[in-house]
């Protein structure tokens, strides 16, 4: 087996590299202010830059193995940074959780890589994709689907999709810049990047691609519903991230890889901006993250408020901010794309409405209304320093205008971004188009679809305004009225508890009762370690009697040996 330390650089890599470096540059600047008084300043930057190295290795890798190195490297950095405040039990637990849950996905990824090598006798991207079209087809489709699904399992772990999303909300225990960079903008998008990078494979495995889309869509909706009821600002953003990642997978899954990457890029900007804004708020409120205790901050933290608002508009899909373009491209693609399906579109649109709702809920709760802070703290609330606010402004600019790189044709645009990435995806997309069963023009026009989703977003915003600005008592009444659903949502559908019951406890019980008490203590320690020693000691006890030091018994043994040997010589035929 040979896998060179080979870097591969094409336009997709360029997009990823630029996104990663720009966002991380701004977050580095921000962190200078944010981490000033947090302790572990140098450790933080060491980890952060190790992460950056690994992330760049991941996106520039020329083969799956090297990609896996980066893949695991960023996982390690994620673990280290989530558990950055390792003296805090919840932080170190969250680190472990992230590490273990993503490892489950990595098992799939590893198997996928192995299967890839076994099938293609190579791990190099170009060679693999070249051989897909020439070697495979027909009877190998199952293998290809298996490879794609296994690889996607890795992506599910890394990009926090159903059912392995549970680690990401907990990952918010890390410092906020980390949440912004790793758990919003870059690392978690590695799964999307990987699927896009492997488009040459996925295009030939439509079943796998449909799975990607379905999982993404479900995750997007599912996470959005949880986000509705979250009171912790950062956690709410985390569920939002999960939701947005799902949206990206919808893009990829419906055959519009460029759309997925486009959304990845715009999301990197506005979601990191949201996190950094949240960090700024958190700093101002001495670490307070519960939205119910905030409010009225728009006057005290002007820059933060405005940048946060821009990001919120972007994520909600309100034109002319970047999110609108990328999200609409995905949604129209979900309907009209080669593997698109109306359900994807409708569920996506619903998600858009929910997204707009919970994002504005956050804005209203945090920045509008009366100040609900404890009076002692309220006086200390002030805008963060320029070290932190300047990156916010820059990111806000990006969040606002990044969408124009791919202005839809409906608006007289050129979809430049798509064309730019054309060399990477054209072959697989055209292959998908050629095999797709439905014609492109069979659905409603793009304009109509856009209008519907825009309307959904607007509805979300209005609902949020109604709930949290016009009649603030309404959410509580609804919560009482639909207490069952509300509690389920607030408690994140009890997924963590479910996993605890289904996986963690059985594994723990098995580990404790079988692996520890039986395997380790009885089998390994008892039989193998102590047993070996006992056998040696017992044999020694018996043999020791021969080694008595008594000269005459030695002579008797020698005589015995001689007699036996002689008998053997005599009786030998």
């Amino acid at each position, binding site marked *: 087996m040979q896998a060179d330390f080979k870097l591969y650089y094409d336009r997709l890599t360029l997009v990823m590299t630029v996104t990663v470096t720009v966002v991380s540059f701004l977050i580095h600047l921000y962190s200078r202010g944010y981490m000033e008084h947090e302790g572990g300043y140098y450790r933080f930057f060491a980890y952060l830059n190790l992460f950056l190295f690994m992330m760049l290795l991941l996106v520039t890798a020329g083969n799956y193995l090297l990609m896996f190195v980066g893949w695991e490297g960023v996982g390690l950095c994620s673990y280290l940074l989530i558990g950055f405040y390792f003296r805090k039990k919840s932080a170190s637990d969250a680190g472990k959780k992230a590490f273990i849950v993503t490892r489950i996905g990595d098992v799939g990824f590893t198997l996928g890589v192995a299967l890839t090598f076994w099938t293609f006798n190579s791990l190099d991207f170009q060679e693999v994709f070249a051989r897909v079209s020439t070697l495979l087809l027909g009877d190998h489709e199952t293998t290809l689907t298996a490879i794609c699904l296994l690889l996607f399992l890795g992506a599910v772990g890394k990009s926090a999709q159903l059912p392995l999303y549970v680690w990401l909300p907990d990952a918010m225990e890390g410092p906020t810049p980390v949440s912004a960079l790793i758990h919003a903008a870059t690392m978690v998008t590695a799964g999307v990047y990987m699927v896009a990078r492997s488009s040459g494979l996925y295009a030939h495995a439509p079943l796998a691609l449909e799975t990607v889309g379905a999982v993404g869509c479900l995750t997007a909706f599912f996470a959005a519903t949880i986000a509705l009821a979250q009171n912790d600002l950062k956690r709410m953003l985390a569920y939002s991230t999960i939701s947005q990642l799902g949206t990206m997978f919808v893009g990829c899954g419906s055959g519009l890889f460029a759309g997925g990457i486009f959304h990845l890029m715009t999301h990197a900007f506005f979601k990191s901006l949201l996190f950094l804004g949240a960090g700024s708020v958190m700093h101002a409120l001495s670490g307070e993250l519960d939205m119910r205790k905030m409010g009225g901050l728009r006057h005290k933290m002007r820059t933060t408020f405005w940048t946060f608002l821009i990001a919120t508009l972007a994520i909600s899909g309100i034109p002319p901010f970047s999110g609108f373009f990328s999200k609409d491209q995905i949604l129209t693609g979900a309907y009209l794309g080669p593997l698109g399906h109306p359900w994807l579109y409708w569920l996506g649109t619903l998600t858009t409405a929910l997204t707009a709702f919970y994002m504005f809920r956050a804005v209203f709760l945090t920045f509008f209304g009366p100040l609900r802070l404890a009076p002692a703290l309220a006086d200390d609330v002030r805008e963060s320093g320029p070290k932190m606010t300047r990156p916010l402004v820059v990111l806000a600019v990006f969040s606002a205008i990044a969408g124009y790189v791919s202005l839809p044709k409906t608006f007289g645009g050129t979809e430049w971004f798509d064309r730019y990435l054309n060399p990477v995806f054209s072959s697989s997309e055209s292959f998908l188009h050629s095999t797709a069963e439905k014609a492109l023009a069979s659905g409603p026009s793009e304009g109509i679809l856009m209008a519907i989703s825009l309307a959904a977003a607007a509805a979300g915003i209005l609902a949020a305004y109604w709930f949290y600005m016009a009649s603030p008592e309404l959410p509580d009444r609804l919560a009482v009225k639909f207490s069952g659903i509300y509690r389920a949502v607030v408690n994140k559908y009890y997924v963590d508890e479910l996993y605890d019951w289904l996986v963690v406890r059985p594994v723990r019980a098995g580990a404790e009762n079988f692996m520890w008490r039986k395997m380790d203590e009885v089998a390994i320690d008892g039989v193998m370690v102590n047993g070996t020693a006992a056998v040696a000691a017992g044999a020694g006890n018996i043999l020791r009697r021969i080694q*008595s*030091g*008594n*000269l*005459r018994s030695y*002579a*008797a043994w020698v*005589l015995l040996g001689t007699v036996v040997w002689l008998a053997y010589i005599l009786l030998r035929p």
Partner: protein
Amino acid sequence: MVPVSHYLLLSVVLFSLGVAGFLIRRNVITVFMSIELMLNAVNLAFVAFSRHLGNLDGQLFVFFVIVVAAAEAAVGLAIIIALYRTRESLSVDDLDSMKL
């Protein structure tokens, strides 16, 4: 002429007596002498074969055995003296450990 087998039988008997002495005697010097007895039994076999085969090499080997026996006696008896100095016993039953 006495057949060579009789010499060999005598040799075996003497050797066995040497072994028996090694097994039943407690005095380390007597044990040592039993070894000499065994060596001599072997020597007798060598000489008998030398005559039987008309080859002088067997006798020559006896010379070497005698020389080695002499060296063995010198060193062995010196060891016995050294042992007696430290343990004040000549019984092999008391000589059952390397360390004192």
